[in-house]
């Protein structure tokens, strides 16, 4: 494992190394630009750390394999880009329903379809949240710097283990391939969370005990004889495909995220104290926005940024509070308007969008121009 120190590394590689430190011991993936460097690094690093790497036959298989490995007790991850996420969506629903902790890295590229494999985008924000069928929740971290590729990967594993949900790391082409300094703290200073498991031989164990929001997870081979299924199930894991069974299961699955939303959500406030215009931004795009805000402040414009380090679950309360403090919110993102919609839903002030078709970030000058226009 990486020892304490400062490293000059590519974002994708940092995610791989952070995953290993977080305890990841299974990685299954299919090559895809621009996420492949994660798989390439894992292909030898995991063996060195006593884990397992496998290049699967497609992304459907990758997603299925990491859920299987998670059920056998391994902290598991895959890495892909938008087209791969499209293929994984059905099994993301399975991970949600089985409550198998897994981490999915999405190094976003231009879409739709094959789009622009080598250029950036933030077009998968809605896909990961809404793409699988039915009602479900994910936790999605969105690093903005190479350092955050490290920090948020650790947090992603911890959140997956703690809440037994699929957790995304939403990087993008620019961040994934950017090389920068990253500080790795002393290993013993890094907080690592492991899933709760039942005691071996506990005859009273109910795999989906509804008296707790996140029941302990039995590991294959320990004698609990669990049945884990994508079907709506009862506390025993047995199919309960009726409205009552559905209500009981779905309400717990929903509550385990929303009753812990303040524990999960992470936001950064930048120059918001006296801001009249707040820009909501995330990921690489937030770097441009930060620079533009600095320049705007030099011109005396009262503008700040609320940066989402977690995109999902959506920080409903915080956005609502922000909207009561400022005159206007602008959502800057490298897509044609995705996160702007939930912001509008929870904001009471005017919300405008700064969109981009993809392939590049907004240059700071363009963000600045728009700030000036909105504050006229």
């Amino acid at each position, binding site marked *: 494992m990486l020892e304490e120190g400062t490293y000059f590394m590519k974002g994708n590689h940092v995610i791989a190394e952070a995953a290993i430190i977080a305890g990841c011991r299974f990685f299954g993936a299919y090559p895809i630009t621009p996420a492949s460097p994660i798989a390439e690094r894992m292909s030898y690093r995991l063996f060195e750390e006593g884990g397992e790497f496998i290049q699967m036959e497609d992304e459907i298989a990758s997603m299925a394999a990491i859920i299987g490995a998670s059920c056998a007790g391994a902290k598991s991850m895959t890495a892909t880009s938008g087209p791969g996420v499209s293929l994984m969506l059905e099994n993301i629903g399975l991970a949600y329903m089985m409550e198998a902790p897994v981490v999915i890295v999405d190094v976003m590229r231009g879409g739709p379809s094959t789009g622009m494999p080598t250029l950036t985008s933030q077009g998968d924000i809605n896909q990961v949240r809404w793409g699988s069928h039915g009602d479900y929740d994910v936790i999605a971290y969105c690093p903005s710097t190479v350092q955050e590729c490290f920090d948020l990967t650790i947090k992603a594993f911890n959140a997956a283990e703690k809440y037994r949900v699929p957790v995304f790391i939403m990087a993008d082409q620019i961040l994934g391939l950017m090389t920068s300094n990253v500080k790795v703290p002393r290993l013993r200073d890094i907080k690592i969370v492991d899933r709760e498991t039942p005691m071996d031989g506990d005859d009273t164990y109910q795999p989906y005990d509804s008296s707790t929001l996140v029941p302990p997870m039995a590991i294959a*081979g320990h004698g609990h*004889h669990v049945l884990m299924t994508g079907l709506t199930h009862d506390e025993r894991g047995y199919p309960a495909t009726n409205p009552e069974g559905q209500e009981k299961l779905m309400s717990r699955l929903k509550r385990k995220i929303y009753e812990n939303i303040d524990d999960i959500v992470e936001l950064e406030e930048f120059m918001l104290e006296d801001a009249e215009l707040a820009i909501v931004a995330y990921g690489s795009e937030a770097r441009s926005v930060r620079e533009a805000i600095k320049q705007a402040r030099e011109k005396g414009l009262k503008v700040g940024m609320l940066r989402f380090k977690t995109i999902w679950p959506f920080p409903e309360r915080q956005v609502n509070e922000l909207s009561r403090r400022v005159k206007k919110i602008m959502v800057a993102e490298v897509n044609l308007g995705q996160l702007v919609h939930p912001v509008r839903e929870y904001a009471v002030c005017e919300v405008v969008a700064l969109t981009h078709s993809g392939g590049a970030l907004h240059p700071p000058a363009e963000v600045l121009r728009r700030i000036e226009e909105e504050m006229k």
Partner: protein
Amino acid sequence: MKPPITVERHPRDKLLRVDRLPHIWCPGCGLGKVISAYSKAIDNSGIERNKHVVVSGIGCSGRASGYLDLDSYHTTHGRPIAFATGLKLANPELQVTVISGDGDLSTIGGNHLIHAARRNINLNVILVNNFIYGMTGGQASATTPYGAKTSTTTKGNYDHPFNLPFLMRAAGATHIARWTVLHHVQLQESIEKAFQHDGFSFVEALSPCPKGFGKKNSFRNAIDTMHYFEQRSELEENPELTQLEIDMDPKSDVIVGEFFAEEKMPYFDSKDRFFHYIGGHQA
């Protein structure tokens, strides 16, 4: 008035989730025989019961995992082999068996079937072939015989079916067997052999689907397919694999047997050749 359901103890009960019985399968279905053969094989395997894990996909056969009192995983349609691959890699001590149908494993999941065989990973795949999508109402699958009537091929199936043992041999499976569910003991022995075999095992279990397949074709009554299996099954030890297509014509033979087994470096050994990671370092 409905008569009360009497559940009597059965020798296989200890491996079943008896509180889930009666099962959902139709009278005359062969899936119970597959479960029975698998559970007898577990009893005989000498492998600790807690190390046996069963994974299945979607469909009638996909419900197999839910009736077995083992660590059991009921996954998505077509994906149990990929799921099982992750399980096995994360804990090679587990004896991982996939039980699922022809639609699940060879049609929607065909890619995972061939790639797991190619890797020669130590999984046991029991493919219950009833030539049809049963649960969704009898539509054609990749093993529906040419000319057979199904609810999506009402004039006769114009698609050619897979010859699964031949496909598996080409893909790299190192243990290939086929029995009908009538060959209960042989099926059980092939499953036991799969447990012992170090590599990818493929056991095809031909099964009647009286409602979905039989009655639309030449097997009006549930028992007719079993009679056909009884009368026309031919045991062959070293058959020409290209000749193993099944047309379910009452005048054709059904070739069954332990078709193929070879020692080929299995997945984990093959990887160890390149990575010696005991102690955390590459040799």
